[in-house]
């Protein structure tokens, strides 16, 4: 059924599911998952070459299937670290698109709002197309859009927890005030939560662990692909209002 494409920074995407590549047991499984998800954009991390197996592996895989890599700044703790990592990512992948992460600590992996906003401002000024991973604070989301981020990517819950969308009210407030596309990023554990994100009005969903660490990653990728479409259509279709008392769906006898 017809739907508008997702548009970020003037670029159109047919898929509203962005898959992260982290956590997959191996490239073969990752490849099946990426194909089942039918994603057009996928995150990659930037690391020293000798610290990783299969250096070129993931890039070749993405190139082979025409999936756009989105470098991230995962693990950066300060604006300065993130800005350097962003520059390296741009040079390595020849793209100005960036998933910006500035993490406050390893236990929560939550963004540091001050460092994140600082980094976002610098990177936007430097010509990056910045997609920041942020918490679900409507104020920070608005300020990130105000400094020129191409989208805002609030979490549903902390990275890898699978706790789903813990505060739908915040996501609804972010969507209601959004000056930029809203991508629900992090916390999704299962398909119904991805559908729910879209029903709340998000423009897309970004997830990794929910698929790559599932028992059957390709099948979960398929589930997420269907769920994002389902939630998007449900949002557009105009759901029935909630009622306290029942209403019959058959005529009176």
């Amino acid at each position, binding site marked *: 059924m017809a739907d508008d494409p997702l548009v970020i920074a003037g670029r159109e995407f047919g898929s509203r599911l962005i898959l992260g590549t982290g956590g997959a047991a191996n490239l073969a499984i990752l490849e099946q998952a990426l194909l089942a998800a039918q994603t057009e954009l996928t995150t*990659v991390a930037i*690391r020293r070459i000798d610290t990783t197996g299969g250096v070129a592996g993931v890039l070749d895989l993405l190139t082979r299937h025409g999936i756009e890599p989105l470098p991230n700044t995962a693990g950066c703790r300060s604006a300065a670290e993130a800005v350097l990592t962003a520059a*390296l990512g741009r040079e390595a992948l020849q793209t100005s698109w960036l998933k910006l992460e500035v993490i406050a600590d390893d236990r929560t992996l939550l963004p540091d709002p001050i460092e994140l906003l600082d980094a976002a401002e610098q990177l936007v000024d430097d010509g990056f197309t910045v997609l920041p991973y942020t918490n679900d604070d409507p104020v920070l989301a608005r300020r990130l859009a105000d400094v020129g981020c191409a989208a805002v990517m609030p979490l549903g819950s902390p990275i890898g927890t699978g706790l789903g969308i813990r505060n739908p009210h915040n996501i609804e407030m972010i969507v209601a005030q959004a000056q930029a596309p809203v991508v629900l990023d992090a916390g999704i554990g299962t398909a119904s939560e991805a559908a729910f994100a879209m029903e709340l009005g998000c423009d897309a969903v970004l997830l990794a662990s929910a698929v790559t660490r599932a028992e059957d990653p390709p099948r979960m990728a398929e589930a997420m692909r269907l769920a994002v479409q389902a939630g998007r259509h449900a949002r557009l279709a105009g759901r029935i209002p909630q009622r306290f008392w029942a209403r019959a769906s058959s005529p009176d006898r």
Partner: protein
Amino acid sequence: MTVTVNGQCWELPDGSALVDVLSRLGTPPRGVAVALDGAVVPRAFWAGTALRDGASIDVVTAVQGG
């Protein structure tokens, strides 16, 4: 001279350039970026960038993540 490459100490002949490090690393033709003393050096400048003793070099690429 001694330089640091991705955290390890390397001995290089004086007059070495950045490109020498990268060729020794067998760096693939694409998907790689280099920072010299915390600043990115575009591929076009690798050959022309001389190294000083104590230089710190980071060579990175894209890996699964995020």
